[in-house]
């Protein structure tokens, strides 16, 4: 197809469902993977932060006693 208008580009010669269905799902999954990875890092760092705070409190308590 030689594009004459933006509308024609989105129609993809009548194959819009299949072409855009492939593009959107592929990049949707890749974006979702990055979100999941970022959330996992967040979870790990939160956990390590909690351990550290817990540890600091222990030290404070020992200091008071």
């Amino acid at each position, binding site marked *: *197809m*030689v*594009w004459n208008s933006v509308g024609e*580009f989105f129609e*993809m*010669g*009548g*194959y819009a*469902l*299949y*072409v855009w*269905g*492939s*593009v959107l*799902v*592929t990049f949707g*999954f*890749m974006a979702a*993977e*990055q979100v999941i*990875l970022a959330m*996992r*890092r967040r979870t*790990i760092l939160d*956990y*390590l932060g909690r*351990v550290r705070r817990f540890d600091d409190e222990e030290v404070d308590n020992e200091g008071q006693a």
Partner: protein
Amino acid sequence: MIAFVISSRRAYRWAGRLLPGLAVVALALCAVGLGLGLAAPDADLPFGDLSRVALLHVPAAWLSFLLFVTLAFWAVVGLVLDNRLAYMMAHALAPTGGMFSFLALWTGAMWSKGLGLGWWVGDPRQVAELALLLLYLAIVGLPALLADAGRADRGAAVVAVLGVANVPILFFAVQWWWELQLGRVIPGGPLVGSPLLLAGVVFVTVGFWIYATFSALVRLRHIILEREFVLRRTE
């Protein structure tokens, strides 16, 4: 042999240094490839604009093969050298490989439906790609099933080594069963008629490869942190 035995601490730092560059290159290659392949004005595409599905289908399928072979390689290194970092690398590759396996099936369904066949044709290529997806899922699922990380490592490695036999089967299934493939209709291969689309496929394939490396290294860093700080029980 010593070369493989680098500490997880050093691997964590090296991976961290590589990540920004990999992200930029992957994004750039995918953008260029997508631009070339989707927008290329081309009156001579073998199956009209449906051919543009190949822009994502071919790279996704290639990555699903390549990542499984890479995963199996690290599994063998892990088994032979009893190397924890190699096992971690194998685990880090599995979810991304499974995703590309699913995307190869998805875009394959788009392709066959667009040709007027069903979403699911059930030919050897689709069945073998589905088997590959299930192998990936087994490797992803094992750590959840086996609380002991050492057993999960060895179990996943055995699945990977046995499952890698599926990759040549799948590869030759694509070569031999051409019912849906453009190759039989257009002598000389599906994309030869369109250099711009072919260039797009090459760019996206390399872009996906670097994307997969990026994701696997991000995941490797997570696994190292989790095991280093015992969020998950190890032997």
